[in-house]
């Protein structure tokens, strides 16, 4: 698999990363190297092997349906560049 410039531009746009045109070529080369390295794993035969979701033998922990959190609006909004009347405010998003 090889990534071309257009694909790299699309990945950047999906990740909301601003990549100047001039840098796409270099990024494509770097990403292709990474992909090539990872693709070594494709040589391992995984027929009949369940996908592994963890290394330790843990179970998903469940929580009780009890309200234990919230009511921390000041903390939640503390890092917001802008907030008004208890809301986050962002540049107008119009559909």
């Amino acid at each position, binding site marked *: 698999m090889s990534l071309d410039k257009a694909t790299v531009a699309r990945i950047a746009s999906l990740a909301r990363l601003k990549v100047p045109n001039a840098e796409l070529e270099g990024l494509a080369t770097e990403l292709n190297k990474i992909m090539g390295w990872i693709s070594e794993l494709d040589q391992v035969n995984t027929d009949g092997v369940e996908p592994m979701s963890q290394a330790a033998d843990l179970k*998903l922990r469940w929580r009780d349906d009890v309200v234990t959190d919230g009511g921390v*609006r000041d903390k939640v909004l503390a890092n917001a560049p802008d907030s008004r009347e208890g809301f986050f405010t962002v540049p107008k998003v119009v559909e």
Partner: protein
Amino acid sequence: MPRTLQGNTGEWELVIGMEVHAQVSSNAKLFSGAATAFGAEPNTQVSLVDAAMPGMLPVINGYCVEQAVRTGLGLKAQINLRSVFDRKNYFYPDLPQGYQISQFTQPVVGKGEVAIEVDGEERRIGITRLHLEQDAGKSVHDMAPDATFVDLNRSGVALMEIVSEPDIRSPEEAGAYLTKLRAILRYLGTCDGNMEEGSMRADVNVSVRRPGEGYGTRCEIKNVNSIRFVQQAIMYEAQRQIDLIESGGKVVQETRLFDANKGETRSMRSKEEAHDYRYFPDPDLLPLELDAAWVEKIKAGLPELPDEKAKRFQDALGLTADIAGQLVAEREIADYFEQVAKSRDAKIAANWVTGELFRYLNDKGLAIGKSPVSASALGGLIDLIADGTVSNRLAKDVFDEMAASGKDAATVVDEKGLRQISDTGAIEAAVDQAIAQGAKQVEQYRGGNEKILGWFVGQVMKATGGKANPATVNEILRKKLSG
């Protein structure tokens, strides 16, 4: 009924599938301990997990899982003992994580079905799957000219996305499907079904085809929040597609928005570009594994659902399918009816509930929970009819007075003097008086005009204020007139 639309070049069949987002009834959110209650001040029910602060980790709410499983069982669906949470990646200001935790290839619930009935014809709509996911926050666009306001109270609230097969063929069926699904969720107590508050909303997939042909290209109408709007949106969208194809155009697969004010759908091209969600398993969450015995226990505790209840009302109580259907539409109605019918004639009870009670509630725009006449009070009225204390005709007046005053039937009957006169002496006196006044009518009756009897009944009723027992009046009249 025909399920096709007539175009200029022939018949078209509608193919509709739905994705319903139903908010899980729970105290806390799917992956945090913040509250889910509706209508709180902005951002007061947000934990640092819901705000996606760095380093915060999700911990699943077991009750939300239980609710999803319960819903799956209510939809007679396959429960997957192992399912996986994935990240669905997209950017929007009300999605602080930059992804929604959802389930993609391995949902918690698999195939099931919902039975619907339209115009007396029963159909089964297939359920493809049900999965658990997080809701996003809420964007408010009209609070300031220069900014969008974001409230994260909903962020992280548990949703069940219930996906149907493309088995729906008309707006009526779509309405019946949503109505039945909502009833099942409410019976189960897994979602309050409140569409105004956004607890239930639907994405509707619509396409058209010539009868018998393969599927056409579909459009998805996003986030429709009432059953009526769903039906309007389908009608508009189907007609748009038919007109487009018949005039030589092609339907483009896209996401559309329903504009309730204009009653039309329009393209949301802005969302198209970002339609690559790049799902992958959420590394913060281990697979969701369920114990078969635990699932069985939930199954054993399921309430009687609307279809089963309607069947029992028909089989055991002898009600018609129509009346039974009306009574099971809401769990509260069914419970009310069963209380009224307990140790009374079920058909009479059903007639009162679906007749006078529904008429009154509809007039006043009240839900059954707000009925001023309780089930036991209505039962009391039916008892007074049964034992002859009040006539059927006056019982309706008694009911209205009970509704207006909140008093019980016996009190209303006594206070208003509506007790039925079954005392033959009093009725005989009124009959004698009527006969004395109607020499002409007596002649007509004896001349063979049976219908004139009604005139005498009217006179007696007038004299007794409508309280005479009609059966007794008739009996005495006939005896005296022929004598």
